[in-house]
């Protein structure tokens, strides 16, 4: 998974989102130890201070915790990760619905279209 950073929004905010995605997707597992800030920054090709800021915010939200001597870890609270997953999914669905409505689709039509496409992809 590549770090995909857009140029018109604050970098740290995008790092937070991408970290959330990685946690939800299990690229970073519950309880897993994170690499050093510097290494993560180098990997994302961003400033270490910016990565630090993003990790501090994730820590504030409880997704990441620091153990004073041994580094930073992903939370072991699987319930919290599950909730985040639902929240991210909900946001995606809302964005999708908004776009469909702007195309003039009603709720019923959206459902039909969804089922059609889903059937197509599941074959």
């Amino acid at each position, binding site marked *: 998974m590549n770090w995909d950073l857009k140029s*018109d929004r604050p*970098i*740290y905010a995008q790092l937070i989102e991408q970290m959330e995605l990685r946690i939800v997707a299990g690229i970073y597992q519950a309880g897993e130890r994170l690499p050093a800030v510097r290494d993560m*920054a180098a990997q994302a090709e*961003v*400033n270490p201070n910016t990565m630090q800021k993003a990790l501090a915010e994730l820590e504030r939200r409880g997704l990441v915790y620091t153990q004073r001597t041994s580094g930073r870890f992903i939370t072991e609270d699987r319930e919290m990760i599950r909730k985040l997953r639902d929240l991210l999914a909900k946001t995606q669905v809302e964005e999708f619905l908004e776009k469909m409505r702007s195309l003039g689709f009603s709720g019923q039509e959206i459902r039909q279209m969804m089922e059609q496409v889903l059937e197509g992809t599941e074959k």
Partner: protein
Amino acid sequence: MTPILECRALAKVYSGRRALAGINLTVNRGRIVGLLGPNGSGKTTMIKLASGLLTPTSGEILIDGKRPGVQTKRQVSYLPERTYLENWMTVDEMLHFFSDFYDNFNLPKAAEMLQRLGIQPGDRLKTMSKGTKEKVQLILVMSREADLYLLDEPIGGVDPAARDYILHTIISNYNENATVLISTHLISDVEPVLDDVIFINQGYIALTESVDDIREQQGKSVDALFREVFRC
């Protein structure tokens, strides 16, 4: 704590032409700062004043609270726009040259980085491509344990892959209390690694701001803002 770099009404005039028009500026520790401006805006003058190669016409520039001199040269690691290394020098000679000059030069570290690039100790500067020369010099400069790194156009004239390497080297080698000042007009390339930017135009400071604040408040990249501010 004393800022690592401070300018007070700093002015520089070259035989009647004003390069810096009395600027006030504070740069703090632990930051990667972009010094951004069009050609001829005063970027190189500013860096040369900080490295002690030029003296101010009026006002003052302070490195860690001190005027540029023997002590500050120890704290400042400077990558000039054009090299001061001789073409006939081999990699090994350059390493020992730096090692003799600077007691804070980490020779094993520099040697290892060069080796990882496949650059041999016996290679001469004159046989290297432009991109390789830039990489070698950057490695030398970043292998000093300095408080302030002054990099004048470190990514000018090299290909995108070499740019990535250079930026990667900068972010993975500076220590967290050090400051890196990068002058460039290749903004979109450096933008992701910068904490703060200084816009300089015709010898004046046009803007100092953090990259994230610019993006947050203006909803656009530093590159886009630069194009607006300096529209010709």
